């Protein structure tokens, strides 16, 4: 009998360190991970198949279920792809509302992730606070859209309805509250000496490989690229709003500690993006013009989208979220293919950087890459 030196661990699906319903099968010797394999498919519902069976409009409630922590990016991206094929230009006010909604979603997703990173290293208080504070945003969502998690608010042609009257006051209040909480998070997480020791130089995505490996979003910016779809190909109202792209080594008030995208930098980038998002929402609320929020378009069931190929992408909290839509001019799409950012982060990036990781650092690394399994397998 041959003796295998490594022992095998399953990080997930039933594991506190798993990032949702997925699994890493890791081979460990001593304290070091020797090999990792990503196991996905636990959440496969065949979205792309189902979407081919449904008409264009019916797909809107479906797409938001692809990424649960931040469903709005799916709606926005899908709507943009359809608008692209239709050749629609949506009303100005709808663009601003989309911006607000997307940024709110970003904040709530980042709060969840930052809390998750902190919790994976042991600061459960941060996770409790983060998720608790996120709930205030969900209240605003509920007031605007009627749903806490799934909003189905962004449609092809604009948004479903206008913002309720007191949204501005409510949102401002919530933003003020969040802003007052951010220094506490800094004290608890970013300025915590133990956190810095655990997080700095751990789970590094090297800068020279980051683009080739398909790393996007905060993880790419943590490696030192100032790449953001909001600036590269502005959608919604981002071209009219003044904001910064936090990226390594411009980490604002946080210390620059390491080369490449490690847990610490990735967390710092997310903390900074929360600040930027608050700034964006404030601006959007201020600059938002009056007017229609939805295009006058034909009856939904009668839509026929012109034949063609469209690719639209948005910057989600995890990275580039893209929709590749193919139409043959009929009532139903021929093919909708979703590019989730976790597809690369969770599989080839994780499998490449895992060898040599300490087994204690494995789950924090996966969580700080913000791997979300539903956008891998859809």
């Amino acid at each position, binding site marked *: *009998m041959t*003796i*295998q*030196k*490594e*022992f*095998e*661990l*399953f*990080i*997930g*699906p*039933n*594991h506190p360190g*798993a990032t949702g319903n997925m*699994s890493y*099968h890791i*081979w*460990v*010797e*001593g*304290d*070091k991970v020797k090999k990792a394999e990503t196991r996905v498919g636990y959440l496969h519902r065949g979205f792309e198949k189902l979407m081919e069976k449904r008409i264009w409009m019916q797909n809107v409630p479906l797409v938001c279920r692809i990424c649960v922590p931040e469903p709005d990016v799916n709606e926005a991206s899908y709507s943009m792809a359809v608008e692209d094929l239709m050749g629609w230009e949506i009303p100005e006010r709808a663009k601003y509302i989309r911006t607000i909604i997307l940024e709110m979603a970003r904040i709530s997703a980042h709060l969840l992730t930052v809390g998750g990173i902190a919790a994976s290293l042991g600061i459960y208080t941060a996770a409790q606070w983060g998720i608790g504070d996120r709930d205030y945003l969900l209240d605003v969502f509920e007031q605007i859209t009627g749903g806490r998690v799934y909003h189905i608010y962004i449609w092809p042609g604009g948004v479903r309805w206008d913002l309720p009257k007191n949204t501005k006051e409510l949102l401002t209040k919530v933003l003020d509250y969040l802003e007052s909480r951010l220094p506490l998070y800094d004290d608890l997480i970013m300025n915590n000496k133990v956190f810095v020791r655990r997080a700095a130089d751990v789970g590094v995505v090297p800068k020279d490989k980051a683009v080739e490996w398909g790393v996007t979003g905060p993880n790419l910016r943590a490696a030192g690229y100032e790449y953001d779809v909001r600036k590269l190909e502005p959608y919604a109202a981002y071209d009219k709003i003044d904001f910064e792209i936090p990226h390594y080594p411009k980490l604002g008030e946080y210390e620059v500690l390491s080369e490449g995208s490690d847990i610490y930098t990735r967390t710092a980038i997310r903390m900074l993006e929360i600040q930027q998002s608050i700034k964006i929402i404030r601006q959007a609320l201020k600059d938002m013009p009056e007017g229609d929020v939805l295009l006058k378009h034909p009856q939904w069931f009668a839509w026929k989208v012109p034949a063609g190929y469209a690719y639209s992408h948005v910057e989600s909290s995890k990275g580039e979220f893209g929709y590749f839509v193919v139409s043959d001019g009929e009532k139903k799409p021929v093919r909708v293919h979703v590019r989730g950012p976790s597809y690369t982060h969770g599989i080839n990036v994780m499998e490449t950087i895992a060898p040599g990781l300490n087994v204690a650092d494995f789950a924090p690394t996966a969580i700080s890459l913000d791997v979300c399994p539903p956008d891998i397998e859809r």
Partner: protein
Amino acid sequence: MITLTIAIFLMGVIVVGLLNKYPKTAGIIAFFVSLIPFFALLSWSSVMNITLPSYLQFLNFETSWQYNLGPGTLILQITPLGWFFLLLLSSLFPMVILFSISYFRSNAGGFYAAMLLTMLGSFGILLAQDMLTFYIFWEIMSWSILALVIRGGDRKAIVSYLSFGALSAMLILFGFMLLYFKTGTFVFAEMHLDASNLVLAAITLIVSGFAVKGALMPMHVWAPHVYSKSEEPFVAFLSGGLSKLGYFGIMLFMYGVVGFSLLSSWGTFRGVPLFGYSLAVVGAFTAFAGTVLAVMQDDLRKLLAYSSIGQLGYIAIGLGIGTPLALTGALFQALNHTFFKAVLFLAAGAVYYRTGKYKISELGGLGYKMPFTFLASLFAIFALAAIPITSGFAAKWLLYEAAIEKKFLFVTPIMLIAGVGAFLYVYKILYGVFLGEPRYNVKEAPLSQLVPMWILVLPLIIFLIFPGWFVDLTAPILQGYEMTAIPHTPYTINTSLAKYNTLAVIFAFIGTLIFAFILYLSKPQEKVDHMDNYLAGEPPELYDYISMHASSKYYEPFEEVFYPYFKRGAERMWEIILAAGEVFGSGARKIYTGIVGDYSIYILLFFLIMVGWWLLW
């Protein structure tokens, strides 16, 4: 009777040597011969003020024996100290031989011959009353050990043992010569030493010579190689029994020949002789470094070897401090170490006998397959780790008390940390070998291997309940050094600092165990298969094989922290040894052909030369 004993031993050596093709017969003969020292021990029990029933004393040995040999007289006489160490060796030796009977399947004649010769040497050493006798028997023992090391067949082991054995012999011989030069006599009782530097040099040389056998750092280098590359029963005897001879020698010369008052006259530090203090510091360092190195080993025998080194360090601490409390502790530790380490080495042998593996990372899950071996080694491990449900704790406790009594502020934390470090490596043995994934489908070890193990466990239990009986044993020894035994009753020991009552511990433990047992019986349970385990939800039937044994590089973070400090020291040391050994060894290699028969002839030749040299001188 002693003449007869020596004659029987020598005859036994020849007979079993010739019975090489019949290992079982040779083993049985060797076993009967090996019982003789134990009978001698029984008949000498009056030395320790013990009266045994007459049916245990059916052989009547004379208490002293002399043989006139040219330049001096060979004197053998039983003393309390000799009796105590003979107790350890003579009770261990038959068990080891018994174990070997089923362990060796072939080619064992040479083994038994050399083992008997080793025991004969030890027997003589323990009874010797003059330096001449002492040295002759010392050489017999050392050379027959060499024969056994050569049987292991590892060049590094042979070279290191040879160089260190030679070093040890030279140091001792030089020390003896200095003493003879100073006093003009070989006999211990006739020596009248003074506080001169010559005597200090002699005693230093002698103690460092013995330290080699006792594997004190930095003289330990040979031990891991020899322990890990020789046959298991021999290693059990070497580690359990023969290593004690070094400490016997240290104790004999430090407290028997030189004496506590003379040691103090070379300077004291905070109430402890400077000589003893430095020995204690070396011992503490050995205890700590041995433990740390043991944690890093993957080879079961190497781990046990370093653990031996660490545990023997405690004896050195006790001998160094030199108060009655400390000496009692040191002797107690010697006794415990003899038995638990022998059990562990024998258990390792039994594991090897069944699986053919020594690497901890390649073993696993034997606890349910070999439950009695497991339980015996569990007991030994409890004793090693000084868990207060075995006698191992009492010994360590005495040493700690002694250290605190003398206000050893820096040595005691090191001792305690070495004690905690012991938990780490014993758990490595427990988990890596006996627990975890069941990898082998083997039977329990044969009965003739289990019986010796369990007999050797017995003293650990007896002296747990009645540590006072042990203190009784030390009383005559300490009397010889003009000290009184520490205050005690059969189950309590008192010191100036605290009290240790074993009955209270045991009864309270039984009580709480009953409480736990009631809780435990409250609900039924079912036994589940090993694979019905937490795999984060993955159904095991989807996989051909899931490796679940984490024993390879088990303490990797620990190794990462400590390895850099030890690597260089050990390597540099090894370079020096090799350079020295190469000079000595390259010539020697032509002579050492690897055939046991040749070596017996060499040993005989050496014997003749030795005797001739003494005669001519």
